[in-house]
């Protein structure tokens, strides 16, 4: 599926105006200083932030189009967004967190749980399945958050600094996990990152963002 966006969001302090197309299976790294609008871009694609202008199209679906007054709610967009601060539900266990999206779509409890456990195992946190999310370490929580977003088989994957909480030794392992289990030939991926190593290992292309505008496109 192809992600075709022109995101315009006006804020008092800056205007985000970014045209970005991500081909099926392509991984684009979005880099730039704090406050450049990277997170706002992801949130606009996911449906948390409304567009002031432009559009978001995914395959043949229009997720948002300011001119046509189309604005699908987040729950109908089939986008996965992994937040910078993982945002696991603190009152649920790790496995309940991962099963959440499946349960919300009406998957029966037992099947949702089995699926969730598979993904926890894949990400190496299966042994913590029954632990309350509030008691996971930063790195464990981030892997659970990745599993939670992937298990619902989203059409597009939006990653917001997903490796910030991981220590240096864990990173290559999670990079490998993403390449092996998450990145495929279909799903476009947008990866916001500070770390050049992330984009070098994972991205097909890097887009630099400064004060809400693209300043350059290139190979990672």
């Amino acid at each position, binding site marked *: 599926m192809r992600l075709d966006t022109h995101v315009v969001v006006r804020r008092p302090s800056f205007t985000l105006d970014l045209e970005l197309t991500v081909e099926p299976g392509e991984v684009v790294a979005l880099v730039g200083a704090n406050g450049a609008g990277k997170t706002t871009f992801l949130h606009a694609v*996911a*449906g*948390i932030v409304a567009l002031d202008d432009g559009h978001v199209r995914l395959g043949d679906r229009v997720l948002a189009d300011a001119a046509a007054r189309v604005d699908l*709610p*987040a*729950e*109908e*967009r*089939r*986008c*996965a*967004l992994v*937040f910078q*601060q993982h*945002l696991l*539900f*603190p*009152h649920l266990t790790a496995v309940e967190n991962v099963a*959440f*999206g499946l*349960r*919300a*779509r009406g998957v029966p409890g037992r099947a949702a749980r089995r699926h969730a456990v598979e993904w926890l195992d894949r990400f190496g946190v299966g042994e913590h399945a029954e632990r309350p999310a*509030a008691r996971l370490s930063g790195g464990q929580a981030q892997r659970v958050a990745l599993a*939670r*977003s992937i298990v*619902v088989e989203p059409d597009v994957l939006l990653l917001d600094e997903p490796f910030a909480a991981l220590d240096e030794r864990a990173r290559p392992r999670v990079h490998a996990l993403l390449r092996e289990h998450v990145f495929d030939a279909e799903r476009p991926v947008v990866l916001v990152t500070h770390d050049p190593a992330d984009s070098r290992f994972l991205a097909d292309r890097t887009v630099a963002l400064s004060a809400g505008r693209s300043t350059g496109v290139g190979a990672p």
Partner: protein
Amino acid sequence: MTTQGSLGTREARTGAPGRARRRRRTPPALVVPAVAGVLFLVAPFAALVARAPWDRLAGLVASGPAITALWLSLRTATAATVLCVLLGVPLAWVLARTALRGRNLLRALVTMPLVMPPVVGGVALLSLLGRRGLLGARLDAWFGLTVPFTTAAVVVAEAFVALPFLVLSVDGTLRSADVRYEQAAAVLGASRWYVFRRVTLPMVAPSVAAGAVLCFARALGEFGATITFAGNFPGTTQTMPLAIYLAMERDPDVALALSLVLIAVSVAVLVGLRSRWLSALTGVVAP
């Protein structure tokens, strides 16, 4: 920055380790009124306990009318609390989570029963639900339903004055709660109703519990609206506060005995309202 701020206050509270705490003189201009304030709150209760007819307390409390009034009070206050939770939590959600126009006006309206004398609330309820009231006349004509001067009227009166406590408590917690969890749930494909049930409600549950306890306490002590809207019939509408007021005119000893019982129930409520729930009232969601 917020983390640093909260760390700072915690250090200030516990005192830096390894350093002797500096003694500071507390200004008498503040201490004297503070002590007077405590006495003002506590002395009447001390007097009540001292004056209570302890030798015949058991007999007075166990007498039929007292038990009847207490039982009625507990039942109606519980029903009113349930009603408040069922209406108040959704109302608080609408106030805190929708872009409804006139939300601030609505919030002000909701707090009306807090600032209005309860007797006025009773008159207002009669104007609406009384036999010749706006709605009451129709209820009577169409369904043969009469609300005033029944046990149901007691519940309505109590819920009317108690509802704002729950709404304000839950609304405050919802507004200070982190909406990003709800956004994360929505991105995962959860409908707003599913998000409310599985994310919002569990996260504000302590505040709902605290609000419910406050509701119960307020309903248990309700007097003005009840006597105006529900009357004072032993067995059906005469709750503890009404029974105490009436006993005061005939036999003050009975009034003292009943008051002790009500105090005991209130203390039990306070104990039930554990510190965790009290902190929920300040609008901070436990992580």
